[in-house]
């Protein structure tokens, strides 16, 4: 696809847009690290009524669709789990660091949306008693569709595709080859999404190429998005 010819003013506006998009992704890392999940949804995610209905949060096992479902999973259920942990106050002994690297970002030629892919060598730590914690490494892709709302870039569809998780300080090579989902904390954490489906099968490395790297594009197309419709195995509700 041939890129349009841009004037200097148009080109520097697009350069600026990409830098703003990178900052939204980077800010989300800090929101997650500080466990500001509700604030993240309020500040960084889409707020228009139509976009809120189609917003999605995906992991290896499916998608939550709509901001209400996302909030229930990502904020309410999460907060209940954190409240139930040992510790004197909310969040004692917790840390969620998912720094985003290897950014690949394309803004649509029409300037209304953008798509980005990052890789995160991450860790999550949760207390298991007043003196001990479960600390884990997570290797994962982070893919985001962004929508420009009132001149600001907002997260619209987000996918975290986990490649592996391993307890810190433990020998990953001793993990079962066929690890049951129930023994995978990422699966347990994800609960029952709006659309349950296997989006990324980590048994086969990156064979499924999901989420796929973005490529230059003219305009948003849900079939080529990080929402559920963009997954190659997605089946529309009416066809299920």
């Amino acid at each position: 696809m041939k890129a349009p010819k841009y004037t200097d003013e148009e080109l520097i506006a697009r350069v600026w847009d990409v830098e703003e998009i990178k900052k939204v992704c980077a800010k989300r890392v800090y929101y997650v690290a500080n466990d500001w999940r509700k604030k993240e949804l309020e500040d960084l995610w889409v707020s228009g009524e139509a976009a809120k209905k189609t917003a999605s949060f995906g992991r290896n096992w499916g998608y939550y669709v709509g901001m209400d479902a996302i909030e229930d999973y990502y904020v309410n259920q999460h907060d209940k789990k954190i409240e139930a942990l040992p510790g004197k106050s909310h969040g004692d002994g917790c840390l969620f660091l998912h720094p985003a690297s290897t950014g690949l970002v394309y803004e649509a030629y029409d300037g209304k949306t953008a798509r980005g892919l990052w890789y995160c060598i991450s860790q999550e730590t949760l207390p298991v008693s007043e003196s001990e914690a479960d600390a884990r490494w997570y290797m994962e892709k982070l893919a985001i569709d962004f929508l420009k709302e009132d001149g600001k870039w907002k997260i619209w569809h987000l996918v975290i595709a986990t490649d592996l998780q391993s307890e810190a300080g433990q020998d990953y090579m001793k993990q079962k080859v066929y690890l049951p989902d129930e023994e995978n904390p990422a699966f347990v954490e994800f609960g029952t999404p709006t659309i349950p489906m296997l989006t990324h099968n980590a048994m086969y490395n990156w064979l499924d190429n999901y989420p796929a790297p973005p490529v230059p594009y003219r305009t948003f197309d849900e079939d080529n998005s990080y929402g559920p419709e963009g997954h190659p195995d997605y089946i529309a509700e009416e066809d299920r």
Partner: protein
Amino acid sequence: MRNKHLDLHQRIVNAAASQEVENVKAQHTYYHGRADAYGEWHNIWSHDPWCSWGHIFGRMRGWDQIWAGSVTHYDNMAMELQLKNQKIYPELGGLDPRPLMEASVHTLFTDVIEVADDGKSARGSFITPGVIFCRLNRHQYPYCNVLWERYGSDFVLEYGKWKYLHEQVCPDIMGKLDMTNFAHEDFERLTAPQEKGIGPVTLGEDPDVTDPGPLHLPYSVIMPPQNTVPWPEPYRTLDNDNSYCPVKTFAELQAEKG
């Protein structure tokens, strides 16, 4: 500021180019993570006869040698492993052997990118604290290695698209996730390699090269850090003083020495 002499138009074009180069470099990571050597070299590399790709073991020069070493040789490794692995895991039959070999995910941090004043080339240095992992393999246990490298990369603008021209890869440390003291391992490599069963750092069978290695030395307890691919400085145009690939080959340099 050096680029003050550039007019506003060229500075805007170069700012956009810097982002494009970041994307090309990231595309490399995502292609390589799937061991899609064909996709990587076909789509994001210049086919210029001057292109080069170097590692510890040496530097391949020219399109044919790179293709033989980085695509054909690499694909062969994947296919050989697939033949072994599918005897253990029959479910692998019929699947693309390349991504099943392993996922080599060379994450990118710490970019220093300079676009030439003439806008025709760009140079970048990067640090990659990466991971290499696989679940279904001949060892019958999952593995995740940690590999930290530096990259020195030259890019050129061809028909409006940014492409790789040269790359020098410089591995510094490697080990099992959370399980390797790489400094102690190097000490044992130096003092008791046979007793400890620790061989030299290699990537298996080396492909044919024009400039033999070693072109970079990984971390060692008896050596200072190796600044093999220093970050690029602002520059006017791609030339022998501003490139990660010397113009003269190893053989030509040897001949000059007599």
